[in-house]
């Protein structure tokens, strides 16, 4: 098979489609390009990820837009093009795999090669069985093999047809980490040789960081952010992304003072009871009085039982312990310092500092541990450096 040139095999999709979930009606409205390689589609369930894949595969019809791979148009509302599923050459591995239960592993893999002469079909399927390390299962029925093996069969069955795009809908969700990473290695190796765009849907944060060359973060049918996983998750500028990225502390904030010279902002965080606290954060392009959100990871905050001095950290805030809870091998301490912050410490730290409800403590937060984001908007935000 000739390897398609990367420029020629990019998936471009501009899709608008109204769709219904049991809870509500909403609009899928996305516009993106996925170059050859892995693109992670990340978002909570009901954010439109599966509908997006269904539109690319042809199982759902967009109300408007265009979907193309390179210069091959799969769907174009304007010129009334809507290729049937079977002509799209889109590989789609569904979450529950949908292996044919009445066919053997080898027959499953050969299924998509019906157009080839028998000898060529056998040869191609055998090579793919070998590549995905399942040749010893060739005579087995899908119900007689393990979950990881079934996953390999499903991938082999799709890839043997040389699709121009591969869609994976949380394909590895049910597998243990070891099995998962072995399968991903094989898949990556395959794609290194073939170079097609792979859209990989997940809601697992670790998969995003481990896998993705690029990530699209979806919410409510829209793409909130796109870029490399680090750009999107490490420095989230959108509240939804922040929650996905694991910020335990998220506060409304107002820009109080801008220190251009120091490269920082002073933000005013307002608590429920009208009390407030001032926090020094990195400088972003904002005006005094602008409404923002600040996210701080609970593990990025230090606790001290007396006021520390001689630290580089700019935020040293007094507070009182509201609760101390054990979670597995970690302690979650909630501290009222004008706003209520969650702080994670070790069991040993709790014991040596004798942390207890009512205790007076100091919170130490580095300027760059304060992540600023736009407030609750649904406007799309692209990071510098992401297409």
């Amino acid at each position, binding site marked *: 098979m000739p390897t398609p040139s990367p420029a020629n095999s990019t998936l471009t999709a501009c899709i608008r489609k109204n769709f219904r979930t049991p809870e509500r009606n909403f609009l899928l409205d996305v516009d993106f390009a996925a170059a050859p390689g892995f693109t992670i589609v990340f978002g909570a369930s009901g954010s439109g990820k599966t509908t997006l894949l269904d539109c690319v595969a042809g199982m759902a019809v967009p109300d408007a837009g265009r979907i193309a791979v390179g210069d091959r148009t799969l769907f174009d509302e304007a010129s009334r093009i809507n290729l049937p599923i*079977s002509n799209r050459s889109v590989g789609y591995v*569904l979450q529950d795999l949908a292996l*044919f239960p*009445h066919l053997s592993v080898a027959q499953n893999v050969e299924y998509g090669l019906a157009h080839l002469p028998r000898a060529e079909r056998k040869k191609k399927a055998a090579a793919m069985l070998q590549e995905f390390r399942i040749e010893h299962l060739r005579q087995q029925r899908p119900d007689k093999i393990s979950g990881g093996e079934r996953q390999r069969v499903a991938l082999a069955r799709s890839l043997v047809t040389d699709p121009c795009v591969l869609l994976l809908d949380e394909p590895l969700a049910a597998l243990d980490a070891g099995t998962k990473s072995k399968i991903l290695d094989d898949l990556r190796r395959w794609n290194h040789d073939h170079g097609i765009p792979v859209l990989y849907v997940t809601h697992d944060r670790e998969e995003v960081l481990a896998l993705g060359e690029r990530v699209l973060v979806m919410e409510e049918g829209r793409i909130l952010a796109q870029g490399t996983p680090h750009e999107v998750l490490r420095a989230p500028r959108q509240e939804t992304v922040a929650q996905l990225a694991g910020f335990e502390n998220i506060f409304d904030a107002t820009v109080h003072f801008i220190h251009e010279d120091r490269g920082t902002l002073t933000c005013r965080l307002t608590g429920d009871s009208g009390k407030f606290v001032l926090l020094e954060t990195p400088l972003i392009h904002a005006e005094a009085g602008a409404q923002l959100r600040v996210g701080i990871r609970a593990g990025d905050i230090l606790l001290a039982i007396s006021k520390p001095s001689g630290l580089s950290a700019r935020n040293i805030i007094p507070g009182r312990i509201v609760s101390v809870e054990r979670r597995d091998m970690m302690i979650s301490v909630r501290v009222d310092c004008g706003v209520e912050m969650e702080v994670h410490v070790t069991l040993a730290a709790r014991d040596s500092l004798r942390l207890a409800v009512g205790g007076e403590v100091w919170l130490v937060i580095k300027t760059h541990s304060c992540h600023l984001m736009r407030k609750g908007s649904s406007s799309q935000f692209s990071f510098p450096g992401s297409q």
Partner: protein
Amino acid sequence: MLIDWQAFLLTIELAVIVSAILFVIGLPLAYWIAFSRLRWKFLVEALVALPIVLPPTVLGFYVLVALGSQSPLGRWWQSLTGHTLAFTFTGLVIGSVLYSLPFAVQPFAASFASVDRKLLAASATLGASPMRTFFRVVMPLSAPGLVTGVVLTFAHTMGEFGVVLMIGGNIPGVTRTVSIGIYDQVQASNYASANAMALLLLVFCFAVLAIVYALNRRAAQKAWTMGPAR
């Protein structure tokens, strides 16, 4: 003669032909019922189910009228062959096909509908046309339902009475089936003969059903019953 073998063979012939015809026309009809999303599908479903609730005499009467020399169909057939369809074996086949339609189509449609739609989607993404998907995925996974439909059609046709009487009458070697023959013998107070034929029909039908269901069960187990993981 205790047993009217001619009537017996005629009945089997009728049942085989009707089963074969209903298999061929039942598949596309059932496929349409199982997969169509048209709003007025329910009307077709109701029409197909009608012979279950309709008295055979009502169905037989209207088929007789439709086949008779007063109807366009009957006139067309008469101009083609020189005789009417009523009181012929062909007429009997037509009436029986209509009468047994739900017994084929309903099991077919139910088993098509129970095939996991994701398998159909997967087949399409692998480049298979709907036709290929039907023969390679839908049909094999519906095998028990297909067998059930054919067997029910066969058994139902073997035992039909009212429609045959209305359309075919009682012409030996042409339209006299076993059930008509039994009725005939009872009318003539020839109970020994009636009993022999009734018993034969009973045993034959039971044997056919038992064999087919046994084979069907074996095939189903072989094809896809979930076995324990190795």
